[in-house]
């Protein structure tokens, strides 16, 4: 790891200021992605700005129609939250199955969304549930937030402060784990919302997480979902799975998610 200066501001406003004043800053949340990246020297920020001092970024609240989760809330806290378990059990279950216990004790929802790993779990839930990403500058719909593999609409000096999830009628997440990394080889999050069914697919797309309106239409019409409409050339192929296999898994996982949501 290259040298850097470390800052631990005690408010989001101070954090934004520290980012503005630095040459090549990086925000540090749980560090579960950023620190390994820095060790491999794939990232070499001049300044690391830790959000650990910003206590107001931690916490979960629920008012019956919306669950709001602070950006620095850990996966373990979301998984064990009685509020999340009651309002959106599929989201609590998803958080409880990310990586391993130690990753869940440090990793945060804000870090996961900002990173937008193409095989990460939270992006699927955020997109399918039609969540709102609240930042220091604005509020973004999930549809506008995810812009490509490891890419988001976030600006350099923009900090995610919270995520607001509308409570769906029902939801479920079906994940086919990569047995080595536990990231999603393919994961499908299904939400039955007041605007109809929403399906978001992670692990498969070359452009990261995406929705399939064709599968959504099938579900709305009461048909069994299948993945025949998915274009294989838009999917990832690697040593873990071919594009054709991922396409097949999208159909299987969509069926399982719809069945599990009931």
């Amino acid at each position: 790891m290259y040298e850097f200066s470390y800052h631990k501001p005690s408010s989001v406003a101070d954090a934004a200021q520290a980012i503005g004043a630095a040459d090549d800053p990086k925000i540090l949340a749980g560090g579960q992605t950023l620190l390994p990246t820095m060790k491999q020297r794939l990232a070499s920020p001049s300044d690391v700005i830790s959000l650990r001092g910003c206590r107001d970024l931690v916490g979960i609240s629920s008012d019956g129609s919306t669950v709001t989760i602070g950006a620095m809330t850990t996966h373990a806290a979301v998984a064990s939250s009685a509020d999340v378990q009651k309002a959106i059990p599929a989201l609590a279950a998803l958080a409880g199955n990310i990586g391993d216990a130690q990753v869940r004790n440090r990793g945060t929802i804000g870090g996961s969304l900002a990173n937008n790993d193409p095989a990460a779990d939270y992006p699927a839930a955020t997109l399918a549930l039609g969540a709102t990403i609240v930042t220091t500058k604005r509020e973004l719909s999930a549809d506008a937030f995810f812009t490509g593999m490891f890419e988001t609409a976030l600006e350099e000096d923009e900090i995610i402060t919270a995520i607001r999830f509308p409570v769906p009628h029902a939801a479920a997440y079906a994940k086919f784990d990569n047995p080595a990394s536990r990231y999603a080889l393919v994961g499908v999050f299904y939400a039955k919302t007041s605007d109809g069914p929403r399906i978001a697919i992670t692990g498969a797309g070359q452009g990261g997480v995406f929705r399939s309106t064709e599968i959504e239409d099938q579900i709305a019409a009461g048909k069994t979902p299948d993945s025949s409409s998915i274009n294989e050339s838009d999917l990832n192929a690697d040593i873990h799975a071919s594009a054709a296999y991922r396409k097949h898994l999208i159909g299987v996982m969509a069926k399982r998610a719809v069945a599990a949501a009931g």
Partner: protein
Amino acid sequence: MPSVSMTVNGKQVSGTVEPRTLLVQFIRENLHLTGTHVGCDTSQCGACVVHVDGASVKSCAMLAVEADGSTVTTIEGLAGNADVLHPMQEAFRDNHGLQCGFCTPGMVMSAIDLVNNNPTPTDHEIRDWLEGNICRCTGYHNIVKSIAAGAAAMKGQKAAAE
């Protein structure tokens, strides 16, 4: 260089570190507590697991400066005195839960966090929890047995104390 202070195994410690110093380096190199191991240094193996403010974390994936003001427990801090092992350590010894022992400190620290959250884990829950701990010797079977026995012993100890 930033200075850090924290409580490690019940003792107040402090030191100056580079911002890039990992918690595991601080524990091993500054405090000379070498029971916490580095197996992979890439967040995969769990040999470096310690407790920070009561939760198990991989100390190779946390900066020492981030533990400033925290309470840290390492494998050396479990046994009350040199003659009496922690029930989970004792269970690993009794059930042949280790061979070379390299993974064991991380296994034990991870197991105690599990039991603190779930005092009576099933074998399936134990295996699931061990996702982040890799052992290249035992085949896990005796580790799972050890943790089940350790959980029962911890429960007994807690009941006796109440």
